[in-house]
Structure formats: structure tokens, C-alpha cells
């Protein structure tokens, strides 16, 4: 910029300097007929001055026009640019490879449009030797940025770029075509932020280059609307002097269905016991989807502890489950279906759901892995009333059908438990326990925070003050509320006989929306009550899920979430001391649901996404450094297996780390395995499922006008892929050069006329020829 400004200033000053130099270099003539000359000068002085001024201005304009024309030609002609020492022009092409680019609503996938646009960019820069091109996918940019390689990339190393600062030569079109052919939609949901941020860093680092940034994307609403980060990054790129071209590669989307959730619906995951699974399918389109089929497959893996099983040869037993048929899914709605799965042997088994093919295939498949234990262990801490423990045990495991294995013990069991001993239990019941020792409270708290579930039942032996001070501990403890007193529930009056008033909570699912529910027959005589002023409204972690009849709506059951675990406090007894619920048919079902509910903290069903990089920090005392990873291959349940050695952590000498996905191994949805070497128990397997991020399934496009509005004041060219011509810039530049040349010619003609008018043209008179021939000067 400064060079051109300097040249422009020189072009303006040059004629003036020539004029001044000519005034100094004039010919000197000692003249006799001065009187006539002075008379002519007096007469023509103003007109001569005006013509000379006009001539000077015209000549300045001519030089400036020449400068502009040369500059324009320099922009278009690389040979000229090289002669002028012009900067290299770097073309940064960012290609969206998120799975929404596989949208083939119009019959051709958006990524194919991106490939064709990339070819056109190749045509555009072909033969421009002073140019370079870099092609980066969104996903690669995201990984490089996360890996902190942007700075090293600025020095020329972009390890995951499809083309890295490729100098334009005779093979550039082939190179770009090959790069385009290698671009496939990933299973990732990568936003444009990382790519733009990476390019912004590169442009700012390479300040000696001109830059043009092409963004080839589908420009979905979810990615580009109200994204202040993108707007800011684009503004930074523009401020760095780069031109921005946003090329829309997607056509109007059709209806897209996606499996948004596949997870176990129950917490009791025991081999030999059916487990209900929950499947959610969402219609992301604008029209109702009808006759939707979902194919289900259960994959039972062999026992990994068997000695002859090695990671490379492991194969699941695949069992096709009945297909789910959904009549219709309204536009924008999510439909939930439940189905049972049954695995006869314990282990980490997988379930896969596959939707019928639609415009985006990637989100039509979902996997989940569930750990099926030999049995679900439940610990019941009994108080002085051992009948309650027996009733509870019977209700939880009637004949072993529920898969729960109930153990009973005293409060000392909590105190004496080792660090991880309590973690073996899905749920811990505390029935009318008087008080807990501090160590027991700490163990219980740690158990809950790590995902365990605890259910309190009050009773006449509860020490209310201890519960308030030690267990509630001003809201920091495991108990959900403070207790003030034991209250008696008055006799029911006519028309209001329901003692337990429930909310819409999963625990009460069987009795919700049922007239004449058996739960209405439960009579509660006494409950522990919190102070009058207590309220759960200000605490997001605490919820009252059932109250006792009466105007005061005193709480009966209160839930609290602590860490990853859940606590449920029932303020009446589990035995018949304070109520008759024990004899009500709703008690076993509600008890099982309570156990199921609080134990979900450990199996939260968190959906792991492709592209994530789970890390294992291994104690060197417990684990060997060799780790085996297995990732899904192209076929359904195929696998790729590789071994790594855990690397020591910088902050600890006793822990080594192994990371899965550091080299893009987790970019494919499916079932992944991690085999650790436990020094005591041998091999240790962790199997997990990774699925696509269905937020990418929203295919709504941002219109061109809305896109321009989103990027605000950033000056970017927004164009559809089919409007992106390979020679449009060249044509525009050529027409501009022609216009400049036309103006230049006109200005030159005006200059000639002015020069002739001002008598600056050489004379062809006899006298002049005589002087020229003899070189005579005065």
C-alpha cells in the first residue's frame, strides 16, 4: 500500500519537477526585439499560464492513469507483478467437511458442489505464477488449532492441510483436483470458527502476502446465525487486508431424520434381565415423515477376560431385533420409542439403530454400549428396626427377577468401607438410621459425588439434629433438607383423602394419570418436617417430588443431585411405623423406580461424540504402559486395532497417559475399545460408542441476505457455487483495465491538444530544421 502511495506521489510530483527543471534549464538568448516580445507576453500572460496549468494537470493525470493501469495489470498479470516486486497472493480455501455437507437434497451432495468450486478456483489461479494456494478442511483446521500447531503452521507446516502453500505451477490444476477428490464429508460437526481462526492467524503471520479467503460451506443457520466469534474473526481477516469470498454450496434442504438418542432406559443392567432401551428420532425437516422404519441390532461381545480372546480377533454375536415402525413424525418433532434388549451373559454389549436412508446418511445410525453386570448390588443400611430392611430387600428382589442383589448391613459398614468399596453398589438405602459417624458421612458423600445413588427413609429413630447439622450441613451435605420435627398428619377430611401428593416424576410413572390410583390408599401418619421457613425453590439441585396432604404442602420426598450422583430422601418410614405404604401394591414398584432413578447417576447415558479424544491417566503402579485401541472399520462391526505406549505426564511421575483420537481415529461413529494392562487383574476393557452430533442435522440454510446481515460490516462476496465463475475476476479486471486505457487515451489526446495549444510541440519550420542540423545553441 505504501509503495503504491509513494508511486502515486511520485507520479504527481514528476511533471512538476520536470517543469521546474525545465525552468532552470532554459536556453539563454540575448535579444534585441524585446519590446515586441514583452508586448506579446503582457497580452497573453494569463492565457499562457492557464494553458500551462491545464497541461501540467493533464500530464499528472496521465501519469496517475498509467500508474493505475500498471497496478491493475499487475494485479492480474503475475509476470508484471513479479517485475514490480509485488507481493505473493495466497489463496486460502476453507472447505466445510461436516457431515451436513453430505446433504444430497437436490440429487448432488453439497460436498460435490464444493469440489467443483475448488476446481473452478484451480482454473482461476492456473498460470498465475506469483500465487499460492492452501486448502484446509474445517475438521483439519479444528484439530490443528486444538493441537496448537497454528503457529508452526504459519511457518509453513500445516500437517493436515490438503494443500499447504502450494505454489501455482503447471500442475496446480491437477493438484487441486486431486485434493478436491480426497475431500469427503466427515462424521464430524465442525463449526467454521476454527478454520477461520487458523486462516486469520496465518494471514496475520504472513503479512508480506496478499490473501484471498474462500469459504466453501453449506452455511447452515445453526453454524452462522448469531455467531459473534465468526463475525469477529472475519473482521480480523478483513482488517489484515484479505478479500473474503463466501461460496454457498448447498441447495434447499429436504426432510432429514436423525437418531438423536439411543440409550438404556433402566438403571438395572444385569445379564439375563431384560433392559429397556430408549430411542429418539427427530424430524429436522419441514414436512411430516411417514412410515419410518428403524432397524435394531444387538451385538453381544464375548467375555474379554477369557484368555484366548485377543483384541484383534474379537467378534460380536449380532442379533437382529424387531424393526420399529413409526407411522409418522411431524416436522420438528421428536418421537421416542422404547424397546427391550436381552443379553444372557455379562459384558459390555452394543446396540445399533439404523434409520432408513435419507438426504443425510451420517445421522441415520446410532450406537450405544451398555455394561451388563452379573448382578446389580444394593446395600441396605438398617436401623434399629430390621423389619424394614427385610421388606425392602424383598421388594427389591422378589425371587431374583429384578437382577438386584441386596446386601444388608449396619451404619458401621459405611464407616469401614474402603475407598472404592462402596462403588460396587448401585444404590445404598439408609433406613431409619439414627446417626452416621463422620468417616461414614465422608465415604457416603464421596460415593454420591462419584455417581452413586442413596435413598433415605426416615423413622422414629432418626436424630433430626444430627441429620440437619451433619448430613444436611447447610446444604453442602448429602441430605437434601434440614429436619426440625416429627409431625403427625391429621385424619383426612371428606373429599381429601390422598396423603401422598406426587409430582410428574419418573419415580411415580406407574401411578401418574391414573384415576383411583392405589397410591391414594396410602395413609401417612407421621413424617419428619423441615423448618417452616425451608424451601427448595432457591436450590436448583434440590427438588420436592412428593408432598404430604395438607395446606402446608409439607415435603414427603425430596431429591438432591450431588456431583454425579442422586439422593432421595423419604421423610416417612420404610416400615409400617409411620404409614401403611408397605402394604400398598404401589410400594414395590415405586421402590424399584426409586432405586432405578437414583442409580442413573453412574450410567448417565452421556452421548459421546465422534472426534472426541478420551484420555486415560494410568497409575504406573496399577497399569502397564501398553494400551491397545480398537476402532470401527468400514464394515459394520469391523475393527482396526493398534497399540500405543502411554506417555508420562509432565505433572506426575506416577501417572502415564494414553489418548484415543489424537490422530483422528475417533472420527467415525461406532464402537471403540480400549484395552489396558492391569498389573493385578490382567486385561481391562473399556468399550464405548461414539455417535455423530445431531445438532449438525439441522439443514436449514441461511439466505444470502441473512448471511450478509450476520457478517455485518465485513465486506465479503457471497455467491452460490453455480455462480462462481473461474474467470469472473479476470473479466472484471480486464474490463477495468480497458476502461482505464480508454480514459488514458482520451487524456493523452487532451494533453496533445493542450500541448499544441500551448505551443509545446516542436516546430517544423526552416529555422528549427537548420538549428537541429547544425546543433547550434545560443
Amino acid at each position, binding site marked *: 500500500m505504501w509503495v503504491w502511495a509513494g508511486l502515486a506521489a511520485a507520479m504527481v510530483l514528476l511533471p512538476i519537477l520536470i517543469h521546474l527543471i525545465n525552468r532552470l534549464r532554459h*536556453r539563454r538568448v540575448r*535579444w534585441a526585439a524585446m519590446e515586441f516580445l514583452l508586448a506579446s507576453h503582457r497580452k497573453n500572460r494569463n492565457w499562457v499560464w492557464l494553458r500551462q496549468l491545464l497541461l501540467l494537470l493533464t500530464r499528472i493525470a496521465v501519469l496517475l492513469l498509467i500508474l493505475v493501469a500498471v497496478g491493475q495489470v499487475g494485479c492480474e498479470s503475475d509476470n508484471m507483478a513479479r517485475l514490480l516486486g509485488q507481493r505473493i497472493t495466497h489463496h486460502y480455501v476453507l472447505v466445510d467437511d461436516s457431515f451436513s455437507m453430505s446433504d444430497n437434497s437436490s440429487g448432488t451432495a453439497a460436498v460435490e458442489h464444493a469440489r467443483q468450486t475448488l476446481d473452478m478456483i484451480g482454473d482461476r489461479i492456473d498460470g498465475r505464477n506469483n500465487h499460492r494456494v492452501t486448502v484446509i478442511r474445517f475438521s483439519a483446521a479444528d484439530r490443528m488449532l486444538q493441537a496448537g500447531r497454528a503457529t508452526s503452521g504459519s511457518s509453513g507446516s500445516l500437517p493436515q492441510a490438503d494443500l499447504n502453500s502450494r505454489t501455482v505451477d503447471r500442475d496446480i490444476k491437477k493438484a487441486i483436483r486431486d485434493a478436491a477428490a480426497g475431500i469427503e464429508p466427515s462424521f464430524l460437526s465442525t463449526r467454521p470458527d476454527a478454520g477461520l481462526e487458523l486462516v486469520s492467524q496465518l494471514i496475520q503471520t504472513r503479512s508480506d502476502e496478499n490473501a484471498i479467503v474462500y469459504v466453501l460451506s453449506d452455511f447452515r443457520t445453526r453454524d452462522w446465525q448469531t455467531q459473534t466469534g465468526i463475525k469477529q474473526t472475519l473482521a480480523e481477516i478483513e482488517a489484515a487486508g484479505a478479500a473474503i469470498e463466501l461460496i454457498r454450496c448447498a441447495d434447499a434442504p429436504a426432510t432429514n431424520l436423525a437418531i438423536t438418542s439411543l440409550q438404556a432406559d433402566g438403571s438395572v443392567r444385569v445379564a439375563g434381565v431384560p433392559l429397556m432401551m430408549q430411542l429418539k428420532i427427530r424430524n429436522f425437516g419441514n414436512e411430516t415423515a411417514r412410515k419410518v422404519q428403524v432397524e435394531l441390532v444387538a451385538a453381544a461381545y464375548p467375555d474379554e477376560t477369557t484368555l484366548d480372546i485377543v483384541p484383534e480377533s474379537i467378534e460380536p454375536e449380532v442379533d437382529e431385533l424387531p424393526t420399529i415402525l413409526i407411522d409418522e413424525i411431524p416436522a420438528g418433532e421428536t418421537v421416542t420409542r422404547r424397546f427391550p434388549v436381552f443379553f444372557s451373559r455379562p459384558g459390555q454389549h452394543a446396540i445399533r439403530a439404523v434409520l432408513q436412508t435419507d438426504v443425510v446418511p451420517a445421522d441415520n445410525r446410532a450406537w450405544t454400549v451398555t455394561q451388563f453386570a452379573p448382578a446389580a448390588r444394593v446395600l441396605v443400611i438398617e436401623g434399629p428396626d430390621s423389619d424394614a430392611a427385610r421388606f425392602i430387600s424383598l421388594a427389591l428382589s422378589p425371587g431374583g427377577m429384578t437382577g438386584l442383589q441386596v446386601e444388608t448391613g449396619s451404619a458401621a459398614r459405611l464407616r469401614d468401607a474402603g475407598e472404592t468399596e462402596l462403588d460396587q453398589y448401585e444404590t445404598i438405602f439408609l433406613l431409619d438410621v439414627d446417626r452416621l459417624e463422620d468417616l461414614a458421612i465422608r465415604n457416603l458423600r464421596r460415593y454420591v459425588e462419584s455417581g452413586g445413588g442413596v435413598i433415605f427413609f426416615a423413622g422414629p429413630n432418626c436424630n433430626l439434629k444430627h441429620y440437619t447439622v451433619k448430613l444436611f450441613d447447610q446444604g453442602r451435605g448429602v441430605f437434601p433438607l434440614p429436619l426440625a420435627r416429627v409431625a403427625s398428619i391429621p385424619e383426612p377430611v371428606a373429599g381429601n383423602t390422598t396423603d401422598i401428593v406426587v409430582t410428574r416424576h419418573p419415580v411415580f410413572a406407574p401411578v401418574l394419570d391414573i384415576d383411583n390410583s392405589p397410591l391414594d390408599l396410602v395413609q401417612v401418619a407421621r413424617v419428619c418436617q423441615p423448618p417452616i421457613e425451608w424451601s427448595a425453590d432457591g436450590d436448583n439441585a434440590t427438588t420436592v417430588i412428593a408432598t404430604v396432604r395438607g395446606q402446608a404442602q409439607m415435603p414427603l420426598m425430596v431429591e438432591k443431585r450431588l456431583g454425579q450422583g442422586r439422593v432421595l430422601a423419604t421423610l416417612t418410614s420404610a416400615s409400617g411405623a409411620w404409614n401403611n405404604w408397605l402394604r400398598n401394591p404401589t410400594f414395590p414398584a415405586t421402590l424399584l423406580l426409586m432405586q432405578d432413578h437414583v442409580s442413573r447417576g453412574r450410567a448417565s447415558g452421556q452421548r459421546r461424540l465422534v472426534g472426541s479424544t478420551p484420555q486415560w491417566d494410568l497409575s504406573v503402579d496399577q497399569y502397564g504402559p501398553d494400551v491397545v485401541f480398537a476402532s470401527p472399520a468400514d464394515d459394520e462391526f469391523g475393527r482396526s486395532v493398534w497399540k500405543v505406549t502411554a506417555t508420562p505426564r509432565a505433572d506426575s511421575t506416577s501417572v502415564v497417559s494414553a489418548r484415543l483420537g489424537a490422530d483422528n481415529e475417533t472420527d467415525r461413529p461406532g464402537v471403540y475399545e480400549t484395552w489396558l494392562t492391569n498389573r493385578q487383574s490382567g486385561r481391562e476393557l473399556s468399550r464405548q460408542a461414539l455417535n455423530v452430533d445431531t445438532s449438525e442435522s439441522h439443514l436449514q440454510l441461511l439466505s444470502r441476505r441473512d448471511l450478509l446481515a450476520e457478517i455485518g460490516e465485513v465486506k465479503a462476496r457471497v455467491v452460490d457455487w453455480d455462480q462462481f465463475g473461474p474467470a469472473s475476476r479476470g473479466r472484471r479486471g480486464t474490463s477495468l483495465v480497458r476502461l482505464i486505457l480508454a480514459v488514458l487515451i482520451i487524456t493523452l489526446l487532451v494533453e496533445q491538444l493542450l500541448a499544441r495549444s500551448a505551443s509545446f510541440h516542436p516546430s517544423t519550420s526552416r529555422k528549427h530544421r537548420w538549428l537541429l542540423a547544425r546543433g547550434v545553441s545560443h
Partner: protein
Amino acid sequence: MPDSKRFLHPEAIRRIARLEIRARHIVEGFLSGMHRSPYFGQSIEFLQHRQYTPGDDLRHVDWQVWARQDRLYVKQYEEETNMRCHLLVDCSGSMLYGDGHLSKYEYACTLAASLAWLILRQQDAVGGMTFDAGVRSRIPVKSKRNHIMSIVKALDVDRPQDKTQLFDVFQRAAETFPRRGMMIVVSDLFADTETTLKGLQLLRQRGHDVMVFHIMDDDELDFDFDGPTRFEDLESDSVLNCNPRALRDGYMTALDEFLDTVRHGCARIMADYALIRTSDPLDAVLAHYLSNRLGMHHRN
């Protein structure tokens, strides 16, 4: 061009350093180019016979008539009056201008010397003066052949300078040369035109024939200059930086007006006027003089 004429061109004349040689060369070259001079020997013309009366000079008796008729007659001739020619040569600073060949001053001196040589060859008397703002030197009117040396010496001015005041000069000439004769003015006339013409009229009123040789350089008449030029006045400190072609039209207009004024003024007072370019061959000027000289006979 005959060889004799070729050496009359100013470029050739310039190579002759000494003015008297230059003048002789010109005149002899000019005369040798004429096959028969109608003017040569015409200064003594026979008019009629008259009967002798005592007291007449016996040298004028026509003895051939006495021998045939025995009567004494004397020959009567047209009055043998030597023409008095006065050369008024401008030596002002403006006469210093010249480009390529002779300067105006050199041309004027050569012309004056040539005229003087020619006049002396015709037995006429010639004198004159050189002038700028005033009279620089005065040359007495004589008809001896060696008078040419005095004339040449008077014309040899170290360096022309100063402005011209022609009226004063002409007035002084009229007083200096009271006898009627021919006043030949050789000048560029770069002075106040009105007073110049008044001076010429004064000479005419004193009975002089006036012949004006207006010497101008080609540059002054054509003004073919190009490129940025700094013009410095030869007679003053005036300076003008200009593009000459831009001023040419105005210059030519002013010059034409000057020349017209001079030409018409001379015609009005019946003074002969000739605009001479310093590039013109000198024989043409001499021819112009002789034709004018013949005309003067008729006019008188």
C-alpha cells in the same frame, strides 16, 4: 548562381576579416557580374554647343567644329556635381544580435563600406556618422579613393552598446551635413518609431534624399524559437522566461505593426525604404541602391 555572386553571400563575406577588403570584394564582385554597366561613366554628360565668348575656358572649345566650320564653339556639359552621400550607421546594442552568419551590426558595416566603395568608384563624395544614443564618430564627406580607409576605421566600433535615439541622431546629421545629398540610414530602427519618422522627415525637409536600409535578423522576422527560453534584452536589463512559441503570434503581430508603421511613414515622407534580412546577399542591396540612385535622377 554565378561564381561572382556566390562570394557575395553573407556567409562567405563573414570569412573576410578586414572590412575594406570585404567592401572591395563585394563591389568588385558585384560590378564584374554586370556585363555592361549602364551607370559607369555617366557622371560627365554632354549637353549642347554654345558660341565661344571671351573668357571661356579654351579646354572646352570643340576643335573639331572649328576645323569644319571655322567657328569657335564650346561644349556645354551637364553640371558636374559630385553626389554627396551620407552614411548613418546604427551601432546601438540591439545591432549586436545575429545568428549563424553576420550580426546586424556586421551586416550594416559591411553594407555601409560596400556602398562607400561603390560611391567612391563613381567619383562621388561619401561621408557619414555612426551612432547609438548619440553620435559615436563622424566621417567627413570626401570623394578621394583612399577615403574608404577613414570610413572603415570609423565603422570599426569596439562593441555596439547603448540604446538608439534616432531623432537626435538625425537632427545632428542634418546640422552636420547641411548640403543636400543622400542620407543612407542603416539601422534596425529599434527606437521610438514616431520620433524616428520625425527625424527622417527632418532630413527630407532639409533637402536630403533619404534611403533607409532596415536591417533585421531572420530570428527577429520569423521568431522560430522552441523550448523554454530566457530572453535577455541587449539594450536593457529586461529578462523574460517563456515558451517562445506561445508568444509567437503576439510577437509577430507587434512586429508587423512596427514594420507597417515604418514602411508607411517612409513612404509618406518619400524616403526610400528597404527591409534587409541579414541573410540577404549584399549585391541585392547594392542593386537596390543603384536603382534607387537612378530613380533619384528622375525624381530630381
